[in-house]
């Protein structure tokens, strides 16, 4: 099984979620994160003092999927989350050695 971690623009979350369920991914976990990268941050001014804020709000999606749909899932996320502008984000894939569904105790592919 693979764990797909995608960091995307927040307003693309709903679209991406729908795309993923569209290809049969039934679960995912999302966190609010802040990203640093090529996309520049912004400046805030308080009584003349300028603060440059280098981190930009992003959303991180983590989805565990079976090996066979991993590539499809990556491509699905990529096309759903793309705007073509800088800061669209990244997708990382890594290996999971075990998965368990807490409610039932089912493991691995059955647990996803």
């Amino acid at each position, binding site marked *: 099984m693979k764990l797909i971690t995608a960091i995307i623009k927040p307003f693309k979350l709903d679209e991406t979620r729908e795309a993923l369920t569209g290809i049969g991914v039934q679960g995912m976990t999302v966190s609010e994160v802040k990203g640093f990268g090529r996309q520049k941050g912004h400046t805030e001014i308080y009584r*003349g003092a300028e603060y440059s804020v280098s981190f930009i709000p992003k959303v991180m999606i983590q989805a565990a999927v079976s090996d066979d749909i991993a590539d499809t899932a990556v491509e699905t996320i990529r096309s759903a989350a793309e705007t073509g502008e800088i800061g669209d984000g990244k997708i990382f894939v890594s290996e999971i050695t075990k998965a368990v569904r807490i409610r039932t105790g089912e493991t691995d592919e059955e647990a996803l």
Partner: protein
Amino acid sequence: MKIMKTRYAASVMAARIAAPMAAFAAVMTPAIAFAADAPPKLDSGDTAWMLTSTAIVLLMTIPGIALFYGGMVRKKNILTTLMQSFAICCLISVLWMVAGYSLAFTAGGSFVGGLGKMFLSGLKVDDLSGTIPESVFITFQMTFAIITPALITGAFAERMKFSAMLWFVGLWSLVVYAPICYSVWGGGFLGKAGVLDFAGGTVVHINSGIAALVAALVIGKRVGYGKEVIAPHNLVLTVIGGSLLWVGWFGFNAGSAVAANGTAGMAMLVTQIATAGAALAWMCCEWMTHKKPTVLGIVSGAVAGLVAVTPAAGFVDPMGSLFIGIIAGTVCFWGATWLKPKLGFDDSLDVFAVHGLGGITGAILTGVFAVKAIGGTSGMLEGNAGQVWLQLYGVSVTLVYSGIATFILLKVIDAVIGLRTDEQTEREGLDLVLHGETVP
């Protein structure tokens, strides 16, 4: 009718000297004032307005100042900041009853009053202060005694020990506030000299502003100041606080007429105009220099305007107040965004720039724009240039006395119990370490 008019004028003259707060305000219900020797009587309308004013001046400190400041600190210090205003409100209420009122408002020397009313002993239900019960006058003035030290806390925000803060504020109230208050309003030398201060430009704002500057210098900069991002954590709170300050300031300024009359009305009107003018001025300065008008800016400007019109409120006309507002907004903007970084001290929430500079600007401009037909005294524009010098005299005395006394108090407290929390506490946040509470 004539008699009434005369008394009215006389009362305004009195106000000019002993200030609006002064106990001996005019009897405002003309029909009752037949002879000059009739004792003052309670006026239920004046009393109603002063009860209201007292309530809304209290609102300025809790939750007004508390939120105004609370929104500007970092989240880890929000409760500490609220706590300071709240605890000051409690502490000063008791101290004012114990000795403050007596020192500030009973006959005494030329610099400080007597001790005859300690513990408010002997106060009766039907004692009057002009046309209102003395109990109301005491409570109204108490709210001024409360807000003044609460303003100072902005200078040493996010790094002072709570215990040291209590000692400082308590002593400062008796040693600095009460004498200055007496000198200007209680029958002391500044009021007698003819210094104009309608509602506290000197007593409240210059006084707290200079104390704030000294405190910022004595306690030193916050850890990470100038290196890390130390930005306001929630300007929503600041806007709420600033708005309540504005609303409550009607009690502060129009209440300082100690009557529900034309002076109160005019004070309210010019307060509104000066505040609006200053807010727009600060906003425009910002828009031009930093490209963006900010919420913090416009609210800060409003407070600057409120401060500057405070000494002037009963003495100037609408046009004068508009100028006062615009000038004060610009000066305070310059103080907070240029002067402070230039000089490099960490007056954390710009108490000196807003209250100190705003107060000084207002005090001087009161001498410029005062209109005889409004408050009984002419200003420079009406040919009385001397008033400006008188105003400068009042400003200087306050700056010097308050500055030095504040310095000594802080140094003594520092030596005895220490003023400042340790670095670790500052890192973790005072809320957690000092008070064992946090806002998640």
